[in-house]
């Protein structure tokens, strides 16, 4: 836009929602850099001006951890980003992450009053702006306001098993109170799904690392390559004098479709594919050693965030065509709206109302095609969504040399098997007291996906926070 832009631009709440700058789709499908590039200070100011500063902010109710949303937006207007960050950080220990990956349209923004008639305030984008502005500062100072951190209560120590957002929240909360926290992560990098699942182009790993470094500066100790239940058990941790133990191991057991040919070469779980690419940095192969398969004709099964991530990763790794095969229609897709739009802009094809029947391969075991059955929408099921019903006898076979299965995950049995007395429900998830997060074993807590099943970053963080509060209450009185 030229310098003499029209001056009759709408301001405040009447102004249109400030667009998020992003890389050109044709360019970005060839790289792993972040798709959206973030607000400039001017954009953030314009967007912050749209907020009505409601007395009874509906947005806050929509947020699973009830961030004081008007409270962090107001200081943006005054240019006091330090204050804005502190308000955010009060309830959310990973704002740069949440600003990027939370499904805002169904949470805070979905509840924002402005959304009733027009477009809601872009709360997530503002959250990201504030957090990113802070990323440049000293890690410890940014949280506590002091440069050097000392642990006041060296005698108290808490262990977290698993290094995902739920555990990181426990660690952030308790270490800020001076309690020593040790995090035991099975993989070689801490961050959980944030580092092994969600791709670089949506959540740069540098941002996650930065948040983790901030916790390290607070005195949190991270132990990678420690498998809970194998290298160290809950009983071992108790014997080592840990005052409380939090289990946040996520729900990473991949589900398969249970159709013939599923073990052919070229059929992957989303977890394997994404772990190879993200944790193993296969997109830098052969500079990094972990290979990822590059299919030409890729079909992804499922339509959630995981499926979108796998599909968009396959595009970036050089597939000619990537389709999402889904039993229902676009309206029922559970992925974040923004991700679906981004994926379509990048050339993703939707193969709605199709269900997998069989994977076919050549004599050497390599995937060659898939057989799909046509579906139609029937009556709503218990989830409220229209159920897919098979159209009798209507099949099609399409060529496909790589398939990714992203139809959900289940609970990993490792911890359950090695922790006597830990109560699990019939799906293998850990049973907790909803208010405190405590499990059937006293002073052993759990939260995040291993309690709820695959959910969201913010809900895992909410669970971490609840448990941390309870732990702090018991330890500090």
């Amino acid at each position, binding site marked *: 836009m030229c310098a003499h832009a029209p001056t009759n631009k709408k301001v405040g709440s009447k102004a249109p929602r400030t667009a998020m700058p992003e890389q050109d789709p044709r360019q970005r499908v060839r790289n792993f850099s972040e798709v959206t590039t973030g607000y400039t200070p001017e954009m953030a100011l314009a967007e912050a001006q749209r907020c009505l500063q409601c007395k009874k902010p509906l947005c806050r109710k929509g947020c699973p951890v009830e961030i004081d949303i008007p409270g962090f937006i107001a200081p943006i207007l005054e240019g006091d980003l330090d204050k804005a960050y502190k308000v955010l950080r009060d309830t959310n220990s990973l704002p740069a992450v949440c600003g990027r990956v939370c499904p805002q349209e169904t949470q805070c923004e979905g509840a924002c009053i402005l959304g009733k008639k027009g477009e809601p305030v872009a709360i997530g984008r503002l959250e990201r702006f504030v957090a990113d502005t802070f990323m440049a500062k000293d890690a410890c100072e940014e949280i506590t306001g002091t440069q050097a951190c000392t642990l006041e209560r060296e005698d108290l120590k808490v262990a977290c098993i698993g290094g995902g957002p739920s555990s990181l929240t426990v660690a952030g909360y308790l270490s800020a109170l001076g309690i020593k926290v040790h995090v035991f992560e*099975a*993989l*070689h990098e801490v961050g959980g799904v944030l580092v092994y699942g969600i791709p670089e182009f949506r959540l740069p790993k540098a941002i996650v690392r930065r948040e983790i470094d901030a916790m390290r500066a607070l005195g949190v100790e991270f*132990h*990678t*390559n*420690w*498998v809970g239940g*194998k*290298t*160290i058990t809950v009983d071992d941790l108790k014997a080592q004098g840990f005052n409380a133990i939090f289990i946040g191991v996520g729900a*990473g*057991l*991949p589900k*398969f479709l249970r159709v013939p040919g*599923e*073990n052919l*070469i*070229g059929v*992957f*779980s989303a*977890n*394997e594919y994404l*772990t*190879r690419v993200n944790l*193993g*940095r296969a997109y*830098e*192969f*052969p*500079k*990094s*050693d*972990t*290979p990822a*398969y590059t299919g030409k004709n890729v079909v992804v099964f499922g339509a959630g965030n995981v499926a979108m991530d796998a599909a968009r990763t396959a595009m970036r790794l050089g597939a000619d065509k990537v389709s999402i095969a889904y039993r229902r229609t676009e309206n029922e897709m559970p992925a974040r709206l923004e991700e679906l739009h981004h994926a379509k802009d990048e050339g993703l094809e939707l193969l709605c109302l199709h269900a997998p029947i069989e994977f076919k391969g050549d004599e*050497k*075991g*390599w995937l060659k095609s898939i057989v799909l059955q046509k579906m139609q929408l029937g009556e709503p099921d218990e989830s409220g969504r229209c159920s897919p019903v098979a159209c009798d006898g209507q099949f099609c076979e399409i060529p496909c040399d790589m398939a990714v299965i992203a139809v959900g995950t289940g609970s*990993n*049995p*490792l911890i359950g098997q090695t922790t006597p007395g830990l109560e699990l429900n019939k799906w293998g998830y850990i049973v907790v007291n909803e208010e405190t997060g405590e499990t059937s074993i006293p002073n052993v807590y759990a939260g995040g996906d291993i309690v709820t099943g695959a959910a969201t970053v913010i809900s895992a963080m909410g669970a971490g926070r609840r448990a941390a509060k309870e732990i702090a209450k018991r330890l500090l009185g």
Partner: protein
Amino acid sequence: MPSKIVRKRSLIPGQTSELVLDAPQIAAKAKPGNFVILRVCENGERIPLTIADTDKQAGTITIVYLVLGKTTAHLETLKEGDEIVDLCGPLGKDTDIHKMDGPVICVGGGTGIAAMHHIAKGHHMAGNRVITVIGARSKDLLLFYDELSKFADEVLVSTNDGSFGVQGMVTDLLKDRLESDTTVAEVVAVGPVPMMEAVARVTKPFGVKTTVSLNSIMVDGIGMCGACRVSVGGKTKFACVDGPEFDGQEVDFKELGSRLQAFKTMEQISYEEFKKSHVCTCSNK
């Protein structure tokens, strides 16, 4: 956590080596049948290797590897005192070891002999009579003969060229033994896929329990990726958490064999690149 190489021993020069790694917490927990996943360097791939032995007092574990591609070749360039960046374990289910009435025959091929060593030792400690059967193409390629001789009640050897032991295959020795001894309680086989498949074929008519340790491709090793899935008795199992040991009669070896080829082209690219960049720096030979 990083782990230091305490000792290195070349078993077959340029091809197979043994490393003793400083890993007290893994040594404390490791049981026969377990494996570790390691990363040699920052850009490295996670690869699984069996724990061939442990020394709980010294806090060390032993691994034996065959140089196959990039990662194992890189590992081979390291010296005593060097560190590998990541070592994770012990992983996998422990071998089912209990006192049995008859002898256990432990069959090993190639680097599988090292894995078999830990299992055989476990059976020996449990008071079982242990017959080990090992094979290689020729005498120079035979691993762990001395180590096994220390505790095994018998060590039977076959070489393809007859340079040591009996000329032929381990399966020939196994078959002879099963024919002459009906008290055998279990057969354990660790080695290349075709060997394990052949062992299962030999034991089938005898109805002897046959355990094989599968080497499917792995990524995380804790049951989260599904890369290691194998068909056992028509069901999909994850070798890293449900195994790596399974009933040899139930395993779909054809599928396992083909799945091991999945990344072949890329593995070659990776190895070639490595050889180019590692012309003269690596060896102290």
